[in-house]
């Protein structure tokens, strides 16, 4: 403590001395202090395990299935990770995906419009849900856990109730023969094959959005603000960061991503089961936390969430390939989450020591 304010004059070789000390912080140590390092190690372990025990897992086609399973969770995990770094939760994210898909499907069908009109309306609805979540949060100052829990329950009810009211069943009508379906499917749910390796549109979008989100987070002012409001809202406000706008923006980002994933589901399956989506919100949070996001905010990366979702995809499909009972999936996901959190916490305390 007493040496903290040593004036520069007393250390004329400050520059070289400094360079020396920087050098002492080894590459390995810097690598280990990355938030996503725990998840990376976890991904390698899970991959190795299934590679060893499950013979079908080794094929290229399996990898494409794993990537697809990861991407549908991973797309949402990107937005949820950003929101968590900004210090908030969104428990309504899982059912909001279905809300968006139902809106697009039913709007196009009931008004017999081009499906792209329904897609546009769904985008508006999804952004509005995010906006309402955010505005409720900043107006009432009630924790986002409670606000989005309420939104989750309301949307869950609305999804089924409105679908039943309009269609008379729990699923929306098949829209596969409507105008614009082919082009929308090409954007949201197409797939292509390269030398036997099947790649889905969502996988590409997943990586594209992850790259954009990472860039925003680390290289733009908004990214700096997201970390700041998650780390200390009061400090951020005091230096002039528009805290409320950033928070609302983050909820709307989750809304946007829910729309995107919802559109994928609609154009992949042509029809939407209105009761789906429940429980997925926790998988998104799981992926973000496995990837190194702190529940308290201000820390984490999008890359980590991507790896977290990939681990989930590997486990989900790996258990199938290994021929085990599918009911074990959630047990393993839970155990992995626990391990990841313990390892992440331990690594963080170790590497932050000077």
């Amino acid at each position, binding site marked *: 403590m007493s040496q903290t304010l040593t004036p520069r004059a007393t250390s004329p070789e400050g520059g070289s001395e400094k360079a020396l000390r920087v050098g002492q912080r080894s590459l390995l140590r810097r690598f280990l202090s990355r938030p996503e390092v725990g998840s990376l190690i976890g991904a390698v372990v899970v991959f190795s395990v299934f590679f060893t025990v499950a013979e079908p897992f080794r094929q290229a086609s399996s990898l494409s299935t794993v990537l697809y399973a990861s991407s549908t969770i991973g797309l949402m995990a990107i937005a949820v990770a950003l929101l968590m770094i900004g210090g908030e939760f969104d428990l309504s994210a899982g059912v909001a995906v279905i809300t968006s898909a139902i809106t697009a499907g039913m709007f196009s069908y009931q008004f017999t419009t081009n499906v792209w009109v329904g897609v546009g309306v769904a985008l508006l609805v999804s952004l509005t849900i995010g906006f309402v979540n955010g505005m409720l949060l900043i107006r009432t100052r009630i924790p986002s856990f409670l606000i989005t829990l309420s939104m989750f329950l309301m949307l869950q009810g609305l999804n089924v109730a409105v679908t039943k009211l309009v269609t008379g069943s729990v699923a929306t009508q098949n829209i596969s023969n409507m105008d614009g379906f082919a082009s929308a499917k090409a954007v949201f749910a197409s797939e292509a094959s390269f030398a036997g390796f099947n790649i889905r549109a969502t996988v590409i979008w997943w990586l594209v959005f992850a790259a954009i989100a990472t860039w925003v987070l680390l290289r733009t002012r908004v990214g700096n*603000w997201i970390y700041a409001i998650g780390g200390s809202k009061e400090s951020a406000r005091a230096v*002039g*960061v528009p805290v409320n706008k950033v928070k609302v923006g983050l909820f709307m980002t989750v809304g946007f991503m829910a729309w995107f994933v919802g559109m994928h589901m609609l154009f992949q399956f042509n029809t939407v089961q209105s009761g789906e989506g429940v429980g997925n919100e926790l998988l998104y949070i799981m992926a973000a936390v496995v990837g190194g996001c702190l529940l308290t905010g201000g820390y984490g990366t999008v890359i980590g969430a991507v790896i977290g979702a990939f681990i989930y995809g590997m486990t989900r499909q790996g258990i199938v390939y290994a021929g085990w009972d599918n009911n074990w999936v959630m047990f393993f996901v839970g155990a992995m989450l626990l391990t990841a959190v313990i390892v992440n916490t331990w690594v963080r305390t170790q590497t932050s020591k000077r």
Partner: protein
Amino acid sequence: MATTTGTTQAKPGPPVEEGGSGPIVELRGVGKSFGNIRALSGVDLKVSTGEVTCILGDNGAGKSTLIKIIAGLHEPTSGEYRVDGRPVKFSSPREALNRGIATVYQDLAIVQLMPVWRNFFLGSELSTGAGPFRRLDVKRMRAICDEELQKMGIDLPNIDLPVQNLSGGQKQVLAIARAIYFGARVLILDEPTAALGVKQSGVVLKYINAARDAGLGVIFITHNPHHAFMVGDHFVVIKLGEMEFDAPRSELSLQDLTHHMAGGAELDALEHELERGQVPEVDPLHGVKSKESVEPELPHQAERKG
């Protein structure tokens, strides 16, 4: 230690928009109520360039409320707040900051988990590029942050360290360096020496002097009259939300200031009382045997022996 002087000259320079020779910041009869609790009332204050105004007061006197009004976090419920002679209504700290009024808070307004350089530029990040490729100018921000901290005598091994790894003094100086770098005309320091050791306090005080010499108006909030008297040009003592005392340096001595700070009239009464010997009776300390202290041991002493 001499390095602290002169550091402020090399900064980009406070935006010089001197509206004559009047005070930059002026409060006239300012008050603030929260519901029916009156936190502050009737405060007059002037801050001019090249002047250190010290605000002293005990805990809960209303110092923090006063700062928050000046910094733009609270709007006063009565009275008038003028900047450069014109009445203003700040609805956010950003607006105050844009007028050159920068605050270094007690909690320093830093984000513990973020790297030093990101904290330095938080809210005022430098960007480069255009359109969708507009991005943070990381290289320049790191270089400037490093340079500014070195000027203040902090040489960090790594400005990528999270701020939580810095010492209390380093955090304080980081916050001051940041405010000065971003062109503050008025620098509000909220108890900058409260959590620091003697040596570190000295550096902060020197920096206050340097800031004044560079033409900044400084508002120095403290409850240490010794620190205040070393750098202050003008002194205001606040008590229970009201101004108890207001005088330029020429009109008082350290003794006066200490006296007012410690409670003034109330202290006189207490002193008087103590002199008359009306002291509540206290048991003698363990091991000190006065004539009257006879054997019957206190219960806890007996216990310990057993």
